[in-house]
């Protein structure tokens, strides 16, 4: 949604404006009736004064508001503009409304020298209070509507992000090719088919539930990488070789689930899959002082060849890893993507080890 290009007088705004108008008219009738009952002249003349002042105020302020900021999301001008607009509306409404009222009842036109007169003063006070009150009321109404729509938008975005994450992890091409391989194995190598099915099972379980849990041990993360890489190596055969290296003392370090998954997927999808002879992936965790460092190395086609994102697939995965790191570890986390010395790509994550584990 691009708020800047919205037309000022779009149907929705006009509708709101007339709704405000109706509320204003109803409120004016109420004031006029109250004043008449309180003994301030006839009901009829009070109605004329009240309605004239009210509708002019409403018209000036509402039209001015749309002119000044109808293209924005909150339909109110900022700062001094809003006070100026209300002051203008009140002045025009007060003078214009009184002129109409005076003409109706045949009273002498407004005399400014008589401003101190009781009637004058009370009209001014009522106009001021009523207009400012109404403006505040409409402003809050508009604002809460806007807040609500922002909230809905945020909710929608969050759902979309989750779906997108799921979509990248359950990439259909990967899933269907795995199933196709499984179908072959069932007839030619049943024990291997069972092993592959188990891997697929734990991979799917993790993918579908992983986005809900906050953390799991690094060893579990490495197990899931193993599942994924094993599935891929059934598919790619000789073209994929991999090593997973996790020192024993780092096994229990808690990490966000599926943190490393996108990195390994990128290595395969953008590094090894396009390469005819395939290559190697090495995932290594090590301790560096009080920090945990995880490296995902591949000998694929390399950064430069992989970057022109034809399908826009690689960007989302990396962005997501970076965001999750930042959410959990803040500024103390780091992710770097670099060309590996032996060709291919090297992704390095590092973040502080929890004090309990060190």
């Amino acid at each position, binding site marked *: 949604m691009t708020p800047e290009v919205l037309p000022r007088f779009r149907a929705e705004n006009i509708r709101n404006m007339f709704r405000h108008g109706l509320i204003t008219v109803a409120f004016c009738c109420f004031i006029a009736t109250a004043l008449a009952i309180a003994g301030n002249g006839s009901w009829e003349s009070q109605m004329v004064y009240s309605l004239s002042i009210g509708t002019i105020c409403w018209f000036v302020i509402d039209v001015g508001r749309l002119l000044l900021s109808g293209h924005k999301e909150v339909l109110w001008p900022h700062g001094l503009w809003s006070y100026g607009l209300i002051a203008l509306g009140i002045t025009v409404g007060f003078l214009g409304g009184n002129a109409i009222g005076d003409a109706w009842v045949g009273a002498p036109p407004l005399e400014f020298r008589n401003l101190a007169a009781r009637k004058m003063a009370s009209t001014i006070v009522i106009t001021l209070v009523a207009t400012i009150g109404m403006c505040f009321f409409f402003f809050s109404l508009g604002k809460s509507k806007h807040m609500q729509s922002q909230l809905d938008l945020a909710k929608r975005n969050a759902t979309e992000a989750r779906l997108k994450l799921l979509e990248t992890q359950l990439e259909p091409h990967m899933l269907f090719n795995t199933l196709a391989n499984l179908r072959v194995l069932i007839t030619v190598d049943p024990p291997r088919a069972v092993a592959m099915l188990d891997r697929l099972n734990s991979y799917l379980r993790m993918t579908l539930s992983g986005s809900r849990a906050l953390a799991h041990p690094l060893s579990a993360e490495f197990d899931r990488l193993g599942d994924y890489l094993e599935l891929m190596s059934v598919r790619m*055969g000789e073209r994929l070789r991999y090593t997973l290296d996790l020192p024993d003392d780092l096994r229990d370090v808690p990490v966000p689930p599926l943190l490393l998954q996108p990195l390994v997927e990128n290595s395969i999808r953008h590094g090894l899959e396009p390469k005819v002879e395939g290559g190697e992936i090495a995932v290594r965790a090590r301790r560096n002082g009080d920090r945990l460092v995880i490296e995902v190395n591949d000998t694929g086609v390399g950064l430069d060849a992989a970057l022109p994102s034809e399908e826009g697939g690689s960007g989302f995965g990396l962005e997501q890893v970076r965001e999750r790191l930042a959410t959990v570890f803040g500024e103390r986390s780091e992710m770097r993507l670099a060309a590996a010395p032996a060709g291919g790509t090297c992704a390095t994550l590092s973040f502080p080890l929890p004090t309990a584990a060190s």
Partner: protein
Amino acid sequence: MNATTTTMNATALIAEDEPLLAQALKAELAAAWPGLQIVATAGDGRSAVREALRLLPQVLFFDIRMPGLDGLGAAAELADSWPTDEAPMPQLVFVTAYDEYAARAFEAEAIDYVLKPVQSERLRKTVARLQQALAAQQQPSPSASPAVAGDALEQTLAQWRQVLTAAGAGTAPPTPASAPLRMIAASDAGGSTVRMVPIDEVLYFEAADKYLRVLTATHEYLIRTPLKQLLTQLDADTFWQVHRAVVVRSAAIESVHRDEAGKLHLTLRGRAEKIPVSRLYAHLFRAM
């Protein structure tokens, strides 16, 4: 199908990068068509082209996603380099697991393709169609004149063109139907400045490795939009695809030449270089 066609002998090549799936397709084919001899199995597009040109099989089963050169690229390359005087153009069948867009495009164009995992029922239908096509090709026609042979070739080429266009348009994610492109934001050869190039000035586009070259009469620019994606935003009458990697402004075409080897090249007004025309698109330049 009668008995003579199920026992029909033919040769085929399988291009599939996943060894198990290649093996499975081979096994399924052995059951559905015992007379079919798989002369080679290639694991990537380049070696598929090489092997096909060496062995000249009658049927090609190509996976779409393959390392190096993909199935579409391999097919386009074969279309150009196939020695049509030695062997008729082969029958082409794409095999795909889940290329969402490509499969949808094939569906829309009613093109025969095989979905992985390969199911015997579906494969049998494809086999029947292939056998029919091969039988028609081999029938000693009463007037086996060069003209008839030319017609047959033309027909196969048209078929290939249809398959490749459908799959090519299909593998590009659909771009929202928008007004034809009018300006192109391109970096110049240095890569540091972005220039706005009016589409009216562009004489041709040429895919080069990771980039797309945009050529006007005087300049060359680079963009990263893949050609197949750009094609959906170009007016089809104004810009003609003449090669897998080249799209030219039709109004700028000056002449088309055929060299001794029978290959077509065209020249554009305002550019000196000769631009290759693929056999698949040669029909655009048949003298009226």
